[in-house]
């Protein structure tokens, strides 16, 4: 079993597609906290859906000037349709080619299923992992852990 990267580890940099013609690198966000939410797949059932839920909490993350990003192995067009259907106001990154490469670097890829874990990382403004958590795949982890981690960051 791969291990989820622990607090204190430098967050591995990556560059992934946000839309068909736009890429985003983690290093571009240096200077502000980043919440990285790995999730298994777009289009899981409605109200309990983790990304739609974070969409509701977004103002709380923004109070900490934190940038939230969802990440799964789905492709950009799938993400685009999903984000539109759920009215998501934050980016979804496509860990699509090579499939799951970033999830592997963070120790949250499920080899047998071909998807990533439901795993959360709070990365501080210097690019170091401040908190990480891997939820049982069927349990939406909510946002309490993320908010506690953001509050604990040095100002």
């Amino acid at each position, binding site marked *: 079993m791969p291990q989820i990267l622990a607090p204190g580890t430098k967050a591995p940099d990556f560059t992934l597609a946000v839309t068909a013609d736009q890429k985003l690198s983690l290093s571009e966000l240096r200077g502000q906290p980043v919440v990285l939410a790995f999730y298994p797949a777009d289009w899981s059932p409605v109200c*309990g859906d*983790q990304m739609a839920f974070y969409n509701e909490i977004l103002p709380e993350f923004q109070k900490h000037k934190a940038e939230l990003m969802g990440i799964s192995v789905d492709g950009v067009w799938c993400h685009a349709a999903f984000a539109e259907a759920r009215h998501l*106001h934050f980016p979804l990154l496509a860990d699509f080619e090579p499939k799951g490469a970033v999830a592997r670097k963070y120790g949250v890829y499920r080899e047998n299923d071909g998807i990533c874990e439901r795993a959360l990382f709070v990365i501080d403004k210097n690019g170091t992992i401040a908190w990480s958590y891997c939820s049982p795949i069927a349990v939406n982890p*909510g946002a*309490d852990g993320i908010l506690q981690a953001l509050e604990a960051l040095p100002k």
Partner: protein
Amino acid sequence: MSELKIPVGAGDHIQGDPQAAITLVEYGDYECPHCGAAYPIVKRVQRHFGKRMRFVFRNFPLVQAHPNAQSAAEAAEFAATQGKFWEMHDGIYENQRELSMDFLLRLGEKLGLDGRALAKALKNEEFAEKVRADFLGGVRSGVNGTPTFFINNHRHDGPFDYGDLVESIERVGG
């Protein structure tokens, strides 16, 4: 894992015996179909446990997904100030498909509330802060969607059919 961080208190809407050994807290959204499905189940669970359990409802409107959820929550809070919280709560869930601003005002009048005061309260978002406080307290406690239930402060994970809830309540608080 997740625990209720905001203790049940005077600001809450509580049904049942204050001394009950079991407290079931629901964080719910009036427009969420899953909450609508849970509504009759909770009633059955209440009947099953009788005096052994009290039930608390807190607001958790998912406003990005449900355009009427916030107004509905505020309308119920308004009704609470006139002693009609549960009548409003039940009236909305029993007619969930009709939920609209118009429906809320009609329901208010049916319950004998001051219609103009209700319309004004909704327009001026007089109860928005109370609803937001419920929401934020829920986020702190690990609410992860609607409905989320807490049984004696422990989050209930997994399905919420009648059997699941009864079993979970028996295990935690019975």
